[in-house]
């Protein structure tokens, strides 16, 4: 136990099956999450490698609350640094991305090279022999914080911590295989959207890892047999709880009565244009759907042909941004691309199977407004955080808390 972290409602309940509600509401927790989690010993998704294809290309992103610039340096290396001028703290880059020779802060024209090194200071020697910086001011000792960067399957991840293990050790071999399965060749961006969710960021990440809710909350999934817990599939969770991947296999033929009587089962619902569900086979297996997450804020989605990366950016205790990047592959056939555009209807802020996820975190946030002394129950499938051959479990949610508590020291 680390007493540094503020705990307004007493000790954490023993084990991983209870989550005290104050963790979604406490401002001190949110502040500690920035230093311990988002600047802590984990890999954080920053952008796609194709966002910075050439020398001088940059893209701005976030690591929790910290603004970050990702750039491709003169030697072709992808680097990342805090988007904060060493002088007065202004943003260095003001746009989503672009191509530059070097970076200038607009405020006082301090200049940085493509790696974020302070390269020059306006009027450093003063004007007409007067003013200027002291002679002993050492530019090499001042600059924005630099991240370590790793490139995985065309995705750029960064970390501020020297203690972060190598990427595969961080997410585990099993999930690494699942990551490689989807992003196995050059991707292409086909859309970018931001969804602002009225909840603490952890509620969204738990929802992503919650294999139990999907077919119950999302009627569209169930009725059209896109996923049911009675379909094959399962969930894997890395040993440290950091990463998860859940899969759903193609539906078996014949009637299925597992959901008889539940709201989510509505056999009367028939699509007038069912061609929209005729996925184009593109992976060499029978996995219809795979959701993969890496703590704290990265999600990779494959729902049939709808591929997307989602990035979580907290905005205070009760709000967050979810940045969606819809993907195709550079070598998509016209038929496959057309199906991706149609199946993009399944996910995103207006997604048939995911619009509810945008709202349900807010339902919790509002529901727990006076419940700092109460706890959530996450006991489906036992008390552990190991993978399972079923999705009727909350193992992966418990895995999230295993990772969170390790990094937070709670």
């Amino acid at each position, binding site marked *: 136990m680390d007493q540094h972290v503020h705990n307004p409602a007493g000790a954490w309940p023993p084990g991983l099956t209870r989550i005290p509600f104050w963790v979604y509401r406490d401002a001190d927790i949110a502040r500690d999450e920035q230093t311990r989690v988002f600047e802590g010993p984990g890999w954080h998704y920053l952008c796609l490698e194709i966002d910075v294809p050439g020398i001088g290309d940059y893209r701005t992103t976030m690591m929790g609350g910290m603004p970050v610039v990702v750039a491709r340096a003169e030697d072709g290396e992808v680097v990342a640094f805090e988007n904060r001028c060493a002088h007065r703290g202004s943003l260095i880059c003001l746009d989503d991305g672009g191509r530059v020779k070097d970076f200038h802060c607009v405020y006082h024209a301090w200049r940085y090279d493509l790696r974020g090194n302070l390269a020059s200071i306006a009027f450093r020697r003063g004007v007409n022999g007067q003013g200027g910086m002291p002679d002993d001011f050492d530019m090499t000792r001042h600059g924005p914080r630099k991240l370590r960067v790793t490139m995985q399957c065309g995705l750029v991840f960064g970390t501020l911590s020297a203690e972060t293990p190598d990427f595969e050790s961080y997410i585990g071999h099993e999930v690494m295989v699942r990551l490689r399965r989807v992003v196995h060749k050059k991707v292409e961006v086909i859309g970018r959207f931001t969804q602002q969710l009225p909840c603490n960021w952890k509620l969204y990440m738990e929802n992503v890892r919650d294999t139990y809710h999907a077919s119950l909350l999302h*009627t569209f999934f169930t009725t059209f047999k896109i996923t049911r817990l009675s379909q094959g599939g399962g969930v894997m969770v890395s040993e440290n709880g950091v990463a998860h991947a859940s899969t759903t296999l193609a539906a078996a033929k014949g009637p299925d009565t597992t959901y008889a009587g539940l709201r989510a089962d509505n056999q009367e619902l028939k699509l007038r244009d069912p061609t929209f569900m005729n996925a184009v086979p593109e992976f060499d297996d029978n996995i219809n759907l795979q959701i993969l997450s890496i703590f704290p804020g990265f999600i990779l989605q494959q729902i049939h042909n709808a591929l997307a990366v989602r990035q979580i950016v907290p905005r205070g205790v009760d709000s967050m941004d979810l940045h969606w990047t819809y993907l195709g592959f550079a070598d998509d056939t016209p038929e496959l691309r057309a199906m991706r555009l149609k199946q993009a209807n399944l996910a995103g802020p*207006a997604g048939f199977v995911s619009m509810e996820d945008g709202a349900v975190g807010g339902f919790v946030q509002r529901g727990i407004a006076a419940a700092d002394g109460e706890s959530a129950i996450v006991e489906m499938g036992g008390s552990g955080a190991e993978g399972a051959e079923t999705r009727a479990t909350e193992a992966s949610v418990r895995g999230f808390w295993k990772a969170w508590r390790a990094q937070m020291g709670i």
Partner: protein
Amino acid sequence: MLMEIAALNAASARALDSGKLEDWPGFFLDDCLYKVTTADNYEKGYQAGLIYADSKAMLADRVLALREANIYERQRYRHILGIPLIEAGPDGAVTAETSFLVVRTMRDGQMMVFATGVYLDTLKRDAGGGWRYAERIVVCDSQRIDTLLAIPL
């Protein structure tokens, strides 16, 4: 013609704002394209939409899903529409550009400017001679969507 197209826009917006969602697909041709995107995506040429339907049947399916499948809090829209800027296109088609502002009111009375933007429409006459949307690209000014986009824009 301007008045006819302005009237079509008004009728389509009324269907969405008054909860008569089932009437809404009827303002489109059977073979149509309806896409909700953002200015940033549109300028970059990104193909995907928040909502993407390439047939009237897909629009009807979205309405059906909103009625029967999807869960969202009770809400209503109010569309405020600008005057269509129209131009003659090939084969008797007309293109129209119409600004919109949508205020969303939630069940508890909370209101917000949910979306502003422009409809980029291509209109053709259907068999009955009335104007219908052959294409409606809804270009929202902001790429940020609050909570969820349930009712179409």
